[in-house]
């Protein structure tokens, strides 16, 4: 993590604004969870549940489903915490991956349960389409890597940022994203392409 560049204007800003990284605290908790320490799991939940629930809501687009996803994700964290060390990821990013993958499982199950599945215009998507209710990014507890991404995503237009985020969080193809966002396919492709180009240029400065 110390390998991230400490030069450039953005990094100067980072140093000034970024709160103390809570990574080491989360890592220590994950190690205790790996030893089947339930009080550590509780502490970990207390520190990360709101953040991870936020992820779950964005992935499945429904608060009640997101609670099921959050529950399953934490039971999964309880089982696989021992594998965290091998990942080299920031702890919150790793937990976010588990939540996302539970959420995607949930959506797949739901889609296969209902052959006539039509994705309702969920709250998350409604915000995105409206576009003037900016969904603020939140850097609470963000790792340095996430902070860098935040800096770069901030330079995108709100809608582009949302399209990029949702493409990843919901594992959507261009055409699936177009259907969900109710936008022409060409528009979505352009947003994603430009968004990724800007990200590439910006993230290179942190490499």
């Amino acid at each position: 993590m110390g390998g991230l560049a400490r030069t450039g204007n953005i990094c100067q800003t980072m140093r000034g604004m970024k709160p103390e990284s809570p990574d080491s605290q989360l890592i220590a908790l994950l190690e205790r969870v790996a030893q089947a320490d339930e009080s550590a799991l509780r502490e970990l939940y207390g520190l990360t549940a709101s953040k991870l629930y936020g992820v779950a809501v964005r992935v499945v687009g429904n608060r009640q489903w997101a609670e099921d996803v959050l529950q399953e994700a934490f039971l999964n964290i309880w089982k696989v915490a021992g594998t965290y060390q091998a990942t080299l990821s920031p702890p919150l990013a790793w937990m976010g991956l588990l939540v996302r993958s539970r959420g995607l499982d949930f959506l797949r199950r739901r889609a296969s349960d209902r052959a006539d599945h039509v994705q309702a215009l969920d709250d998350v998507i409604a915000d995105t389409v409206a576009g003037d209710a900016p969904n603020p990014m939140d850097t609470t507890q963000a790792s340095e890597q996430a902070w860098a991404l935040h800096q770069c995503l901030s330079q995108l237009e709100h809608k582009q940022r949302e399209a990029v985020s949702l493409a990843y969080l919901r594992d959507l193809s261009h055409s699936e994203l177009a259907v969900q966002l109710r936008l022409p396919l060409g528009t979505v492709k352009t947003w994603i392409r430009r968004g990724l180009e800007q990200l590439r240029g910006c993230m290179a400065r942190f490499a």
Partner: protein
Amino acid sequence: MNLHRHPALVDKLAASYALGTLRGGARRRFESLAREHASVRAAALIWQGRIASVAELQPEVAPSPAVWTRIENRLQAERQAQAMQAARSAPAPAAPAGRWWASLGLWRGAAAAGVFATVVALVGGVSLNSRLSGQVRELSARLSATPAIEYVAVLSDEKASASILVTFDPNTRKLMLKRVGDFREQPDKSLELWALPPGAPAKSLGVMSGDAVVQLTAADSDIRQSPALAITLEPKGGVPPGTPATGPVVFKGALIKTPE
């Protein structure tokens, strides 16, 4: 074209690969390229790490407090299920005879299974909470104290007016006999228990004392090979080892293997 020689293009593909918008044949080609070339693989991993941080930037939303309660209940249920499994696979400890017979209703295959079902029902219940954990622990202890009875026999006299209940626990090799009814041998006589293997001479399993409950130790094979048991009336202390029965058969009955 040697794609991996074009770092800017590789970087671009790696970014859409990590985002997930690189699909179909393009994705498969990128994946095989990444397997061949470490630099392509590195670009993919770097972008996967970067994109995964999207999850860290999502706005916080407080979940309902019920979520943690549900997680806690599930953990507790898992713990209990593990304890139950351990209790069931561990050899049953030898229980004091009096207490054991007092809980005859816990015979395996009938009531012991009932105890287990109760525990499972409690553990599986959605409303399981910490208040129940004491009960579950208690049931679990009862189950582990229940002998794993594999064979049961009711040995009756001709008129079925008196009988002897026999159970065998292969884990402890304990043969338990309980007198039911009022048969009492004379003071100078003893009751002797015999295994009756087909096509072979009866084999003595031991001599019963005058107590209401008698515990004998028997080899697993003697019990398994014996479809029936019998009790003869012998001189005090039984026949000398290795000699056949001398007295009349007073009780006999089939040995039944309990359902698993």
